[in-house]
């Protein structure tokens, strides 16, 4: 195989390789017809692919079809980088979902063998307006590997492109795509499945009003955190930029196959649907919107 990569494509190829290096140890470079090359990680538990078009041509056949995913989020890569910044670098997995109230929420995922009474939980919640597109039902969520997500995010950020997140139900792979005239990147990550209903954990004590510490008034504090969000605040800077028109990869023929080597079923902790996302009881009284002076904040 002998090829020549010219001009700005060298940098694109370098960044693709850098990004893939954060996902796996080996790179699989496959020459295709019409002088395209496809860079991918060898099929293992999570086979992402990054297609780097070295010549203009028709798009390649994808194994994983974003168009078949009912849920889509699109945001500038920078917003997503900032969204995951509060999470510890040691955290393995993160849960992404849409809460009642249409906020987009990232939450740390506690692995099975972690002691919940010792581990700190972090959650980041953003207004849907920060997203160029949000087509997802409230309550939809997936859990995936944070380290790999950070890897593909840094690639998208360096290319200054928005990232599309296509996802389906937990257990089905999530497809992260970026596109411009030079490149077309599809990253596929496996997501954790939901447990059987019978193995689901019992509802946690203290979620409702019956807490041993009599924190009744504070049970509404989680609602309170959303009340902060609804306060009128001063916005510096422009409104969200209009989305770059970037057609999703359309030419899918093949049925998306079962993801080879999907990780074994893991219990999906109902922690994510704790008091924040799906309050087990409605607030005792309608909370007033705290309409402070828009000048008064910050």
């Amino acid at each position, binding site marked *: 195989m002998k090829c020549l990569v010219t001009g700005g494509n060298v940098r694109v190829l370098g960044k693709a390789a850098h990004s893939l290096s954060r996902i796996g140890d080996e790179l699989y470079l496959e020459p295709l017809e019409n002088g395209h090359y496809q860079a991918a990680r060898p099929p293992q538990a999570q086979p992402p692919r990054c297609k780097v078009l070295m010549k203009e041509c028709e798009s390649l056949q994808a194994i994983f079809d974003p168009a078949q995913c009912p849920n889509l989020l699109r945001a500038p890569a920078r917003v997503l980088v*900032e*969204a995951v*910044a*509060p999470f*510890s670098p040691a955290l393995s997995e993160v849960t992404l979902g849409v809460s009642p109230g249409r906020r987009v929420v990232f939450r740390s995922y506690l692995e099975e063998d972690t002691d*919940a*009474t*010792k*581990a*700190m*939980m*972090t*959650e*980041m*919640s*953003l*207004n849907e*307006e*920060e997203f160029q597109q949000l087509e997802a039902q409230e309550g939809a969520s997936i859990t995936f590997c944070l380290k790999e997500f950070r890897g593909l995010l840094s690639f998208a950020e360096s290319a200054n492109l928005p990232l599309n997140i296509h996802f389906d139900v937990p257990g089905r792979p999530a497809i992260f795509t970026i596109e411009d005239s030079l490149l077309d990147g599809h990253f596929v990550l496996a997501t954790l499945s939901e447990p059987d209903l019978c193995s689901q954990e019992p509802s*946690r004590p*203290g*979620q409702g009003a019956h*807490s*041993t*510490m*009599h*924190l009744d*008034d*504070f*049970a509404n*504090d*989680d609602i*309170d*955190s*959303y009340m*902060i*969000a*609804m*306060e*009128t*605040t001063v*916005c*510096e*800077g*422009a*409104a*969200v930029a209009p989305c770059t028109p970037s057609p999703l990869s359309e030419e899918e023929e093949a049925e998306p196959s079962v993801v080879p080597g999907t990780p074994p079923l893991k219990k999906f902790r109902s*922690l994510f649907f*704790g*008091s*924040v996302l799906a309050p087990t009881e409605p607030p005792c009284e309608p909370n007033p919107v705290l309409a402070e002076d828009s000048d008064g*904040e*910050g």
Partner: protein
Amino acid sequence: MRFRAKIVDLGCLNHFTRVSNTISKLAKTCTLRLSPDKLYFILSDKVANGGVSMWCELGQGNFFDEFQMEGVAADHNEIYLELTPENLSRALKTAQNAKTVKIKLTNKHCPCLTVAVELPSLSSSSRIVTHDIPVGVIPRKLWTDFREPTVPDFDVSIYLPVLKTMKSVVERMKNISNHVVIEANLKGEMNLKIETDLVCITTHFKDLGNPLWASEDASQDRDSENMAEARIDIKKLLQFLAGQQVNPTKALCNIVHNRIVHFILLHEDVSLQYFIPALS
């Protein structure tokens, strides 16, 4: 038991963050005591700590714009929590540009200190980062373990040299020896000494000044040149010095000969006491 507090001012937030960072460098776990006027970070002198103890006291009004608490009972209007201070520091680290930070006691999957940070965003509503830090509620019958330490009956009290200088000296000494002798007299002189089979090194500090304590029997008849000394674990001394992020308004230590070294750091609104026992 209820607790909720809010910080709006960025200067107050930075200050509180620095205190939290210092505490997290001094103790892996500690007790957070909440009262209507003050917060305390306490480490009691258990064997597990090597006999080291710490008492850090903050006036809540200097940090929080809102502060409400209700203790375990009307006549015991306080809350004692066991906390990993590093978690608090990590949570506050995400609040660098925050508009507000709320801290409250909640009951999620277990008792937690929930830190809710409101961050600016380009949209019409803020981003919210929420951290749930698990804490242990300490029952009232154990509160006596965490009483304020009394100032020991010291032999010498002396102001410390510039902490940064002291730290860099001790850092180098740590590579040579596990123990250091700290000695001082009432003439404002302090020495740090290490000794091995091969070498003895002494660093001399002069003209430090001796604080005047109100107590009558402050060693008046002590020969002012006489040194009081204590041999202490060098890592514990370094841990104390390395944890300091800001120059205190006042820094002094009290030495009880061959028994204990008691450090006192005073800032405008925070005081920190640290006790390191002498080795036999």
